[in-house]
């Protein structure tokens, strides 16, 4: 076979491959599956993105070859992690991405671009500051970096030199590849630092690199005006390129108590932060090594589903363990250093070791008393997180514009972000009404709390809002709504910005106030997916028993960020009159909802053939409820009454 024949073979095979890829229903394994009628010419569109207009897609009947349920959106879990014995003899220190690279020429300074990003923990006391120095090979050739990295804020004198001869491992970089060096810093004073937006980096050992001034992001003055022992400037060696272990792209900071008693319980807070501008995904929960004095233990962080770190994301792990009665501190300082290592990263903090508390003398003898031994419940994230303080939360409501003939309620989403410094919990149902509108007597009171949402700093939770015709006449200001939480112990009524609410949406005869409840905890990650979508129903006002009910569902993205659904995460929806049937939305290809965009889906279901036994289903006599819900979002859906004749 010559080159031309090879070219022709590839073209022919590529063409067949494309045809097969684009063929509809290529993964369907039930040939008998009946496709439901598709409305409009847009039905053939692979992607139902039609700008401001509304696209129409069809829905396939339930596919028996697919699982009956799909997992819901991944919740953000901040776990309380005990010191759990783990059969890890030694952390794997080999790195497939590392190569000796001795035959690769050293990178020149003009071939590299650099920037530093810092993750400064919210509470700086007794914490290290961690960061990454990213070095990109901007040249067109392969080259190597191998050096010790020392750094200090720009303007600070380097009055103590580091004379180490250790170079660390080399990093061999192809063009465009990135190497990172972890930067740690504790006890640094910033006096003399003219500008914390730049740091001075000294490279020791790499040919031709010398020193460089590097732009720095995230370094704040509060991080360095601390006294204490430890180093007076940060340092770090090159790790392998970023194509190595994902955990090496995360910055680790550790917060520890100032003191612990021998035999007491040591509680640490380890924070993994992604200070880069790219998302980082962990293949598996990392192994953590904790050292106090001469004692070291290896454990696996119980990261659960927290695997994807969006740029800027942080996850805090609470670690606790008995300090041991044998832990001793050096006599001269009385302080020992507790160290935490995750992968190649290390962070440590000084801790004072106190003698064990003296036992309290018993005033009288206590007889032995048989007692039932109970197992203490394992603390869960829900129980351990305190309620969010009022000022720690930022809320915004987005409403989808009602369609002209929409008979259902007004739909919206409420986004709540933890802007505080602590992990906290919100758990409350709530009501809302336009600012200035009068709360109807006895409305909205409920004892149900709904599911909690655990929010780490920066996390976002989303709740769907349903509004059955709030009273919005008179002085009501539709630019804001009053949100009235029920039962959350630290939240009070507050007025919040409402985007997209229009006066025409108000006069509806069904109810007085809106309601909602937190759906699930989500993060700043971009895959909020269906949670951000609102649902609008459009159905006939009445149907005959046993007849087919045709209705449309309008999914709208009322938020300011795009929402994407894809086949892997395509939601299962449940709909029907009285009895719900489960179906999967036809997400063979990707759906992308631009901010404000709507996509309409057409559905069919059967009206009940027989009248209900008690004659009382639905909000009124002879009325049933047509319901449509996302499977993954218990509160994400709509119901409207239809008269069944």
């Amino acid at each position, binding site marked *: 076979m010559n080159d031309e024949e090879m070219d022709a073979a590839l073209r022919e095979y590529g063409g067949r491959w494309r045809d097969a890829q684009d063929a509809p229903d290529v993964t369907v394994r039930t040939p008998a599956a009946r496709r439901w009628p598709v409305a409009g010419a847009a039905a053939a569109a692979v992607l139902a993105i039609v700008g401001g207009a509304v696209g129409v897609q069809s829905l396939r009947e339930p596919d028996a070859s697919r699982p009956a349920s799909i997992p819901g959106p991944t919740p953000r879990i901040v776990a309380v992690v005990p010191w759990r014995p783990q059969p890890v003899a030694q952390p794997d220190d080999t790195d497939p991405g590392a190569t000796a690279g001795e035959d690769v020429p050293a990178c020149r300074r003009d071939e590299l671009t650099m920037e530093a990003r810092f993750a400064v923990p919210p509470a700086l006391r007794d914490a290290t500051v961690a960061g990454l120095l990213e070095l990109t090979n901007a040249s067109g050739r392969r080259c190597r970096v191998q050096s010790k990295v020392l750094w200090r804020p720009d303007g600070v004198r380097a009055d103590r030199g580091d004379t180490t001869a250790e170079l660390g491992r080399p990093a061999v970089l192809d063009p465009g590849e990135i190497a990172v060096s972890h930067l740690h810093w504790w006890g640094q004073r910033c006096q003399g630092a003219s500008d914390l937006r730049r740091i001075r980096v000294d490279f020791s050992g790499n040919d031709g690199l010398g020193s460089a001034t590097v732009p720095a992001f995230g370094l704040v003055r509060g991080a360095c005006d601390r006294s204490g022992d430890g180093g007076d400037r940060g340092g770090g060696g090159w790790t392998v390129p970023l194509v190595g272990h994902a955990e090496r792209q995360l910055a680790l900071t550790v917060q520890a108590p100032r003191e612990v008693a021998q035999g007491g319980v040591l509680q640490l807070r380890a924070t993994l932060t992604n200070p880069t501008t790219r998302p980082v995904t962990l293949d598996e929960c990392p192994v953590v090594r904790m050292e106090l004095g001469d004692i070291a233990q290896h454990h696996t962080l119980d990261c659960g589903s927290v695997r994807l770190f969006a740029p800027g994301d942080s996850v805090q792990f609470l670690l606790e363990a008995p300090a041991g009665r044998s832990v001793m501190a050096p006599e001269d300082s009385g302080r020992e250093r507790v160290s935490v290592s995750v992968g190649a990263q290390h962070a440590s903090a000084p801790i004072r070791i106190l003698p064990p508390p003296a036992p309290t003398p018993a005033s009288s003898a206590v007889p032995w008393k048989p007692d039932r031994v109970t197992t203490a419940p394992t603390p869960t994230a829900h129980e351990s997180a305190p309620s969010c303080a009022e000022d720690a939360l930022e809320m915004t409501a987005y409403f989808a514009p009602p369609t002209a003939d929409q008979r259902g309620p007004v739909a919206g989403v409420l986004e709540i972000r933890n802007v505080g410094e602590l992990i906290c919990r919100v758990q409350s149902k709530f009501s809302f009404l336009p600012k200035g509108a009068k709360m109807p007597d006895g409305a909205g009171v409920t004892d149900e709390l709904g599911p909690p949402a655990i929010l780490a700093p920066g996390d976002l939770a989303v709740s769907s809002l349903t509004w059955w015709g709030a009273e919005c006449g008179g002085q009501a200001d539709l630019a804001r709504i009053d949100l009235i939480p029920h039962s959350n112990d630290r939240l009070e009524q507050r007025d919040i910005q409402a985007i997209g609410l229009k006066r025409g949406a108000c006069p509806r005869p069904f109810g007085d106030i809106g309601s909602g409840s937190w759906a699930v905890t989500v993060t700043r990650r971009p895959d909020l997916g269906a949670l951000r979508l609102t649902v609008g129903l459009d159905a006939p006002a009445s149907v005959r028993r046993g007849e087919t009910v045709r209705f449309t569902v309008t999914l709208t993205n009322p938020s300011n960020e795009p929402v994407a659904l894809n086949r892997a995460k395509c939601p299962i929806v449940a709909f029907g009159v009285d009895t719900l049937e489960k179906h999967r939305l036809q997400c063979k290809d*990707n759906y992308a909802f631009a901010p*404000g965009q709507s996509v309409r889906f057409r559905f069919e279901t059967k009206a009940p053939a027989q009248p209900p036994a008690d004659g009382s289903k639905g909000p009124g006599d002879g009325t049933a409820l047509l319901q449509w819900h996302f499977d993954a979002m218990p509160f994400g859906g709509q119901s409207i009454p239809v008269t069944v004749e």
Partner: protein
Amino acid sequence: MRAGADGEFADWVSPHVVAMSRLAARLAPDGDRDDIVQESLVRAWRKRSTYDDARGSVLTWLLAIVADQCRRSRVRSRPTTSLVDSPVTDSPADVDLERGLLRLSERQRLAVSLHYFVGLSVRECADVMRCSEGTVKSTLYDARTRLRAALEVRA
């Protein structure tokens, strides 16, 4: 930038999603295609202000994002074996060709995927790969040479 307005972003990317899916299907580990495309769309949304039409078309800009996402995905994924039948690799010749494609370098696979499987011209491939047309041609030639050698060994 045309996609600056919120409502225009979908119009802007929708003609290219099929091509994005094709490239992701060629380069990403099994089953990751849709995730790759979704991540790429979100990334494109965030980076839309950096798009410069003087440096290439929207299509090539989006495909460059997909290629980068695929590279990251491959790095963090573990080798898996697909149990799903492939609709086009029934014949032994196709199987051999696919195996040969797996033996190409990352750069060669990207060039072959863009040119033969996504259907881009050499000029467009060069925009995605951020290199000259001559480099694309030589990369494709090297890839074909390697493929021929692999197929001849099997024969």
